[in-house]
């Protein structure tokens, strides 16, 4: 086995520790930024849904500000965002490099996208349900948790799956700020040193990662769907 691998992917086998570090860096970035993306995306997604015209807490000022901010951040290419927010990174995380330095740009680059995913998931909620809940004397907070989030859970999971998968792609760029990770590993060895097996292995691992996310997402969606 060992020999077969040495034959097939010599350049990976020769730098296994670096490869493992790259893998764990990718996973670390995914997990840490994922947590913040989930929290902020859900929060902003809910806020933009309830404050829009006709929403249960209609507030045009908050809606407009949030809407424009999302559009602003969504239009900045991630590679530019990575370097542009370095001062902010330093302020929040204490450093602008490595995995820690990549969290802030990853969150800033993904939250607007995820917010839109949540917004469109919540927008699918039948307005009749909101009306029924209001007629039963539900408060806005109750409606958010017991109607909006609960009824659109399948769509939220679907949006989360899409976001996490696009996050996998973004972490690959984080090497620019020295965050390491699989993408950086592939560029440095696979591309720069023409070690093709490195590229192949990273791609395969990313494909597996994306599929795992997709399959689990699909399972959750299925479990939470009761519509015919």
């Amino acid at each position, binding site marked *: 086995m060992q020999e077969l691998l040495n034959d097939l992917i010599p350049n990976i086998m020769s730098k296994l520790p670096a490869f493992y570090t790259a893998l764990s860096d990718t996973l670390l970035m995914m997990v840490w930024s994922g947590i913040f993306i989930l929290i902020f995306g859900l929060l902003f997604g809910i806020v933009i849904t309830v404050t829009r015209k006709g929403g249960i807490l209609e507030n045009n000022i908050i809606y407009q500000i949030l809407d424009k901010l999302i559009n602003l951040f969504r239009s900045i290419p991630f590679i530019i965002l990575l370097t542009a927010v370095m001062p902010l990174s330093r302020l929040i995380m204490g450093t602008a490099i490595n995995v820690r330095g990549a969290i802030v740009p990853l969150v800033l680059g993904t939250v607007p996208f995820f917010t839109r995913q949540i917004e469109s998931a919540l927008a699918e909620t*039948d307005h*009749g*349900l909101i*009306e*029924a*809940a*209001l*007629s*039963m*004397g*539900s*408060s806005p907070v109750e409606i958010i948790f*017991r*109607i909006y989030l*609960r*009824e659109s*859970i399948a769509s939220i999971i679907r949006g989360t799956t899409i976001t996490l998968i696009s996050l996998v792609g973004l972490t690959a760029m984080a090497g620019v700020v020295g965050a390491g990770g699989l993408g950086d590993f592939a560029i440095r060895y696979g591309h720069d040193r023409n070690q093709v097996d490195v590229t192949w292995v990273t791609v395969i691992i990313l494909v597996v990662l994306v599929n795992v996310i997709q399959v689990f997402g699909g399972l959750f969606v299925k479990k*939470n769907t*009761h*519509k*015919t």
Partner: protein
Amino acid sequence: MILINNISKTFEVSKKKIEAVQDVSLTINDGEIFGIIGFSGAGKSTLVRCINLLERPTSGTVEIDSRELTSLSTKELRLVRKKIGMIFQHFNLMPSRTIFGNVAYPLRKSGLSKKEIREKVRELLQFVDISEKENAYPSQLSGGQKQRVAIARALANDPKILLCDEATSALDPQTTKSILQLLKRLNEKLGITVIIITHEMTVVKEICSRVAVMDRGRIVEEGEVFTIFTNPQQQITREFIKTTSNLQKIDALIKANSQVVTLNPGEIIVRLSYVQRNASEPLISTVSQKFDVHLNIIFADIEIVQGAPIGGTVAIISGERDKITKAIEYLIEKHVGVEVIKDAGTIE
């Protein structure tokens, strides 16, 4: 008692003002079944939403048991809404919850224990006759079953008022009937005031005691269902009534020159309609014997509304002209509405 005082509601749609409800005042008594009928776009749904303030009226007030709702705080309003049940045309059940979960929804934070909630939900499901579906999801139910669940949910907090917004409009006639019977039962057994919004006159005829006719944002006619049916004042009301009666079919038959309405000389076709609550006399046979005329009934349509017969017959009268005239005079004397539809003329 529900007092609606001079309610108006204006929407602004792309800079254009739409007056959905204009200066409507209504008094709805405790324990009655009150119908509000109108064609779509008449503003009836907006009006009913003004009662629990799902729509805030632009002007005017709503009083329920001498409590003015428009001036309540949002928190107080939520408490009031718990005592006003509402059901909808499209049921609005939550697809992610089971039937049990849907009915239990409004009971959270009601101060009941889990066990009490379970008992309450089962009791409600039994009342609307759908206990066996407790663990099903709404998508597995038929329209009528969904509306039953929606009614159970609306009753969860023991409301004193139930608002029905086109609650039977998405149902077939048979299911409509069974839902109306259920509404009548909860009105009688639980003493709940029911307000029904509909565009179907049959619904009004079936269970309402009073009705208001709405047209372009205004109430154009209001009164006891029997009176409205027998003596409609407005053209629109007449149109609604026509939709429930077979007696209008004669016009179509005449237009089509049907065999049924071909007259011999001396015969006339009349439409006789009951306008008072005393149609117990055997008028047809009395007239036939007394005046020596023949009445050939083409069709009859008599229904019981609020315990009194309503409707009438279309008949061909044949006989000598002066006898026919006398017979008609007699009928009018007996408070039967007589309308000559077709006259073949006297025998030369």
